[in-house]
């Protein structure tokens, strides 16, 4: 068992610096962007499932929760799904627009004994988040410290972020948001909500609420390279496994488990609002890898045209009949 890294150490070294980056705007890219990200280590072996993190998250973020207006505007066409959690705000055994963190449980064999492992689940805060990059409107943004957040003042509730998220994390509440002021029956459907890593607390140099509330020190937060190293060290100590380092091309939430994640994934209850712990390929990589082709394409086109021009100029110097000239009698 390593000396527990005190939350204060990371707060001082990591959060203070990273928090100031959270406010930066514009097209700023670092050479190793994810090395400037804040990551969290979640040690499953230490979690007792008390739910203090879930409670703390709800209390801290309740001011950000949806405030839907009823009756909801009728949406066209009729198949458009209404997502209403406003009467079920107490539900805390899955992700909802009002519950951004929940405890997933898995009964597995650990060292020959049947054990119930409990796992706090929320947004993974991917290093290159599809929910941010693929939102067609721009309601979601990522900060330089890696935190991704849906701006519910901008969100139209299209739910594409949920569809492109490998874990389908964002959850929708109908009846709230900007879409009400635009074309509520034709476009939009509410607002999407998910864990925002308490970005406002982090910007002030504080810890996310779930981390601060945990009585078992299940989570630690700090600069990503250190967290990754910590995760592997902890996994080595307990003969365990790491999840979240490479999934979807890399996330800033690293789980350490005493049993393989395939085992956990098979044992947990999965479904809407209950994300899996399985493999997640980096699906943005396919298109991003075409970047080189995008650079070469105009050069190739220009070169082809120049080549034809060169051939035409050369051809003019030689005696060749024009195709339209009639043959001389």
């Amino acid at each position: 068992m390593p000396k527990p890294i005190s939350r204060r150490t990371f707060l001082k070294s990591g959060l203070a610096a990273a928090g100031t980056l959270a406010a930066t705007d514009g097209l700023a890219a670092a050479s190793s962007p994810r090395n400037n990200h804040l990551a969290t280590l979640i040690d499953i072996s230490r979690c007792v499932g008390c739910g203090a993190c879930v409670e703390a998250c709800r209390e801290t973020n309740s001011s950000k929760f949806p405030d839907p207006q009823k009756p909801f505007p009728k949406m066209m066409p009729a198949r458009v799904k209404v997502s209403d959690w406003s009467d079920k705000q107490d539900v805390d055994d899955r992700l909802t627009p009002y519950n951004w963190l929940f405890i997933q449980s898995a009964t597995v064999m650990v060292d020959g004994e049947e054990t119930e492992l409990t796992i706090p689940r929320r947004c993974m805060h991917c290093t290159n988040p599809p929910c941010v990059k693929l939102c067609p409107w721009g309601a979601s943004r990522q900060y330089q410290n890696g935190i991704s957040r849906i701006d519910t003042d901008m969100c139209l509730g299209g739910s594409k972020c949920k569809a492109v998220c490998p874990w389908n994390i964002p959850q929708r509440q109908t009846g709230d948001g900007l879409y009400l002021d635009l074309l509520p029956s034709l476009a939009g459907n509410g607002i999407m909500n998910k864990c925002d890593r308490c970005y406002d607390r982090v910007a002030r140099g504080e810890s996310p609420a779930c981390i601060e509330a945990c009585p078992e020190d299940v989570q630690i937060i700090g600069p990503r390279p250190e967290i990754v190293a910590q995760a592997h060290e902890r996994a080595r100590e307990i003969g365990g496994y790491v999840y979240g380092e490479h999934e979807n091309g890399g996330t800033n939430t690293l789980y350490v488990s005493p049993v393989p994640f395939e085992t956990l994934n098979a044992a947990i209850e999965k479904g809407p609002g209950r994300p899996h712990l399985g493999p997640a390929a980096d699906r943005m990589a396919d298109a991003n890898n075409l970047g080189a082709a995008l650079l070469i394409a105009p050069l190739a086109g220009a070169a082809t045209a120049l080549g034809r021009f060169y051939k035409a100029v050369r051809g003019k110097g030689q005696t060749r009949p024009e195709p339209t000239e009639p043959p001389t009698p």
Partner: protein
Amino acid sequence: MPTNAISRPADGRMPGQMRYFYMTLLFLMALSGFGQMPIFKRYYIADIPGLGWLAQFYVTHYIHYLGAVALLAIGAYTLVRYMTVERPRRRISPYGLLQGLIMATIVLTGLLRVVKNYEGYYLSSGLIVFLDILHLAAVMLFLLVGLWGLRSKKRWTKIR
């Protein structure tokens, strides 16, 4: 065929095959582009047999990138061809200038969005929305002006 033969219709249009390819490409770009918004599933279009892929975001995303590669190649080819072969005899028309500027806006905003999709680019919501609206508005304008141009038999170039 002699290499100095200009295999282009006298009115300055693209050669037939390239024109067909270009129009199909524009159609695919518009389709995959609009598919970035969650509308095809909502409006039953993805229910049409064979069109289910229109609701698969990563598929339409990739197709849009592939189409952009082809579009950039054609665009550069056409531009250099105009600057070298065509300019002695033809010049850009007002219609061509308009469509050219609109297309340049589409391409520029599109490329900025490509850059944004890489890790390490942190745009503000405002900037993302601005690029989004500009890209979408320019596309709609290009399509509308293009439809009018097709109807009125407009050309991008005219004889000097």
